[in-house]
């Protein structure tokens, strides 16, 4: 068991690393348990690690690459003394103080905790889906789009990220089928207009993917029309899934109050959770804004809430 920390930050996206910068500058010597490498967005640096250019993060008039932005966040936190462990928390006990956090059998204790574990992409949960990841099925257009040059592919989803992916993929693919569950897009108006005016994008309304076909790699999918119940094959070699996110909160089940969907509940206008001394920031408690800048903002708020709470304890 290592020495007790003043604060442990779980997660290392914009929220976790901003909390790290602020708590480190406040001389709280945060321990950041940043997660482990993966090809999902549940990885050190978070969802921006799977993006390319970020055009709307203030302070970068020319834009900046997502992974580079997150490396900068991390370097800035390290500069002020934040300590990092590149592993995933496997269990927590917030029922007594100090709070306990485990990485497998390795125990860490802290006076306070900031939870910033973010969210990750939802999958379709179809048979063969996991076998075909990396063989036509993808959750990361920026990682994999390159390999579909001159292919005909599909994107599932009707929100901003689905449309962003579809438009990005038109740089490579001959045609992009956008599979939309309802008869309307959830995406913002500007993204809708971009999708509708892009000649390479064909929208399939009221449709969902019900089957994936292909042995070594994807060759086609079955599309079901929800309006008339009919099904038809669609020959595509790539399927990009962008149907939304789920919060990374399974380790907090029964420990922290959460919505039915798994998003952590925080006290209105603050980052306090139901456990005194445990704070939550970023997408793990926000399914409304879900932006790097709002996550960073709430990470800053969590650091300040945490610092003041710690002062009040002594």
């Amino acid at each position, binding site marked *: 068991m290592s020495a007790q920390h003043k604060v442990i930050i779980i997660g290392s996206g914009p929220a976790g690393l901003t909390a790290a910068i602020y708590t480190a500058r406040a001389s709280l010597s945060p321990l950041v348990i940043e997660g482990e490498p993966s090809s999902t967005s549940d990885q050190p640096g978070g969802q921006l690690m799977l993006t390319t250019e970020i055009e709307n993060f203030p302070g970068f008039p020319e834009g900046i690459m997502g992974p580079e932005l997150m490396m900068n966040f991390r370097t800035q936190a390290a500069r002020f003394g934040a300590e990092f462990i590149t592993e995933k928390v496997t269990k927590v006990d917030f029922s007594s103080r100090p709070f306990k956090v485990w990485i497998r059998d390795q125990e860490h204790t802290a006076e306070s905790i900031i939870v910033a574990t973010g969210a990750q992409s939802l999958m379709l949960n179809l048979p063969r889906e996991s076998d075909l990841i*990396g063989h*036509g099925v993808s959750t990361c257009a*920026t990682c994999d789009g390159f390999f579909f040059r001159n292919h005909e592919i599909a994107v599932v989803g009707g929100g901003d990220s689905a449309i962003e992916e579809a438009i990005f993929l038109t740089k490579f693919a001959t045609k992009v089928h956008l599979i939309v569950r309802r008869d309307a897009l959830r995406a913002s108006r500007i993204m809708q207009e971009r999708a509708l005016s892009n000649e390479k994008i064909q929208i399939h309304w009221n449709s969902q993917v019900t089957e994936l076909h292909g042995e070594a790699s994807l060759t086609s999918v079955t599309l079901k029309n929800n309006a008339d119940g009919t099904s038809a094959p669609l020959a595509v070699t790539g399927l990009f899934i962008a149907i939304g996110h789920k919060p990374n909160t399974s380790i907090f089940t029964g420990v922290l109050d959460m919505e039915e969907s798994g998003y952590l509940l925080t006290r209105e206008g603050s980052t306090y959770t139901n456990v005194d001394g445990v704070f939550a920031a970023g997408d793990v408690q926000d399914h409304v804004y879900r932006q790097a800048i709002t996550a960073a903002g709430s990470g800053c708020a969590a650091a300040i809430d945490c610092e003041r709470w710690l002062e009040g304890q002594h």
Partner: protein
Amino acid sequence: MAEGIVNLTSATFDEVVNSSSKPILVDFWAEWCGPCKQIAPILEQIASENPEKIAIAKLNVDDYGDIAGRFNVMSIPTMLLFADGELKHKIVGAMPKGRMLEELSPFLPAGQ
């Protein structure tokens, strides 16, 4: 780049892979791939900790897409393990070092 990790090209790929005296893991990567950046230091560690057992090489898919196409690489990072010039195992996606070693160990010489 860590000592001992070779950058392959279309011209050198076959020769390096076929002539390797120990199993060789080829990391297909690109500059724009976030997960590739996370796997790189892990592969460097594995290379430096197991110099007798495994060789590690990298192939930039932007520059040498023909090789990526030849092995049906459709996602990066993808890591292909070759032994005696033959493809033995394909690993897709970034993962922690422990899981990577589990993936590799059945194909590596036993003992120290």
